[in-house]
């Protein structure tokens, strides 16, 4: 099994702050951020020169449909009170979706680094508690002594549950897909070597079987599972933030 892990898969579990901070996943995550920034400018200029009297087509139509869909979803789930959240949700969708998609190019998958998923979940976590404090004013602190005052330490511990569950859900999904694909590539390399090892030169003989079998699995693990996890992450974000509202029906 040694061959699979020469990619350095499993020395990334630690949250490295300091000298090891800029490993492959962090750099790819920064690349994704760069792509999103460039895309935002492109979208801005495309929509600035658009004629509002004609219907959009092509790229503009796709972007308009995507933004409208997610904005409507945010409005439906969170109500009019959280009107400004559409931007955050769209940014989150683009970031997580692109992080899953960029792994298809062969770059290291950013979401297999716990630091990346933990920072995304931390944004949501801060939003949850910030909005709870804003909506409930001083009675926000009452939840920590909710049934009985001596349960304060337990409540303080359970405060961190959304952070852990959000980050580990994304991390576990990305990492399990990545590990299964890694093991499969290793095994198919061996199979290919045992079939073609005798009569094909050294470069090609261990990569001939994998391209036949792996694309469909990439479709499942990266595209399907990844995009569904993106949807789940944004839905949980919206639900968790809007749950803290004391009177949610008052929109």
């Amino acid at each position, binding site marked *: 099994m040694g061959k699979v*892990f020469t990619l350095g*898969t*499993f020395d990334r*579990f630690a949250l490295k702050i300091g000298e090891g901070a800029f490993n492959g996943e962090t750099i790819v995550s920064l690349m994704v951020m760069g792509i999103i920034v460039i895309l935002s400018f492109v979208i801005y200029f495309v929509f600035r020169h658009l004629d509002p009297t004609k219907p959009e087509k092509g790229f503009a139509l796709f972007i308009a449909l995507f933004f409208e869909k997610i904005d409507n979803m945010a409005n439906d789930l969170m109500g009019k009170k959280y009107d400004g959240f559409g931007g955050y949700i769209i940014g989150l969708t683009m970031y997580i979706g692109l992080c899953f998609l960029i792994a298809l190019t062969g770059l290291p998958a950013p979401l297999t680094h716990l630091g990346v998923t933990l920072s995304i979940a931390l944004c949501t976590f801060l939003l949850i508690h910030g909005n709870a404090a804003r909506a409930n004013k001083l009675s926000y602190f009452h939840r920590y002594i909710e049934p009985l005052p001596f349960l304060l330490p337990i409540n303080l511990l359970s405060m961190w549950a959304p952070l852990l*569950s959000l980050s*580990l*859900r994304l*991390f*576990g*999904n990305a*990492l*399990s897909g990545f*590990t299964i694909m890694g093991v499969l590539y290793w095994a198919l390399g061996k199979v290919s070597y045992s079939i073609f090892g005798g009569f094909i030169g050294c470069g090609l003989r261990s990569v001939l079987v994998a391209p036949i079998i792996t694309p469909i699995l990439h479709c499942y693990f990266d595209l399907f*599972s990844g995009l*569904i*996890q993106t*949807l*789940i992450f944004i*839905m949980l974000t919206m639900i968790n933030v809007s749950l803290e509202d004391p009177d949610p029906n008052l929109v």
Partner: protein
Amino acid sequence: MNTIGAAIAVFTGFGSGIGEGLVVAKAMEGMARNPEVAGTLRTNMILGCALVETTGIYGLLIGILCLFVG
């Protein structure tokens, strides 16, 4: 020892399998009762499946951690 730990951790798949089966069974029932909302039900079913699957994924994660890190 690590291998036994990983095997125990992967047993979380038991619960998440039952849960996912319940989700799909109820969704099928709903689809059979009124087929006109089958599209919405299917979307929500896939979403619910992915949400239920999370516990299994936690187990898999701990199994991988047991095998390769600990």
